[in-house]
């Protein structure tokens, strides 16, 4: 796949994400928060964020 085609595909994916229902976007956000925590933990850095809905 060419770079141009990749850029077009990414732009289309971002347009699609923007149109998703709010609830789905929130569930994606929580996945992003979990990924950020996993990345921090795997590299030994402290995780300073929080995962929404988890007991603190």
């Amino acid at each position: 796949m060419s770079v141009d085609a990749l850029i077009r595909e990414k732009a289309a994916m971002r347009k699609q994400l923007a149109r998703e229902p709010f609830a789905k976007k929130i569930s994606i956000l929580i996945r992003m928060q979990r990924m950020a925590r996993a990345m921090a933990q795997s590299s030994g850095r402290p995780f300073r964020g929080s995962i929404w809905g988890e007991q603190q």
Partner: protein
Amino acid sequence: MRGDIIGPVLRTLNELKNKGLLADYAIGGGVAVLYYAEPVLTYDFDVVCVFPHNAGALLDPTPVYRELKQMGFCFGKEDQIMIAGVPVQFIPADDGLLSEALSNAREIVIEDVPTKIITLEYLVANMLKLYRPKDRAKLDLIVNNEAVPLDQERLEQILGTYSLLEKWRQFYER
């Protein structure tokens, strides 16, 4: 898909408003950006608000914090309050732009709970005003996504009022 994360927060905020502890509020910050654009990593649930006791220069969020503590919610990092597992940050609408943004906030329903959200054009104006790295990153997401419903004419009216048109031009032409 989880549908029970934001509802409890909004119900609590509406309860505070009904009790007269918040004069008004609207969703702002990263969650508002996420509402209009694609999901963006954020940890705070920003609430743009007016406290009822801030006549003149006095700003007193104490009754809100006291009530939330009585309701069983605890304080998180800095001045966040954990409401149903979500760190909520109250941002007083204490300048002209935020105050106008709150007055013009859009009424919406999330998880069956009525609420208000800062409109996209005021969000952009406020991020342009703050212009921190995280604001610039979010501005990029908004500007470079054709699916984001930005009203350019309305935006330019707001930017003109708050002397931000030149900054917008510089950002746009980078």
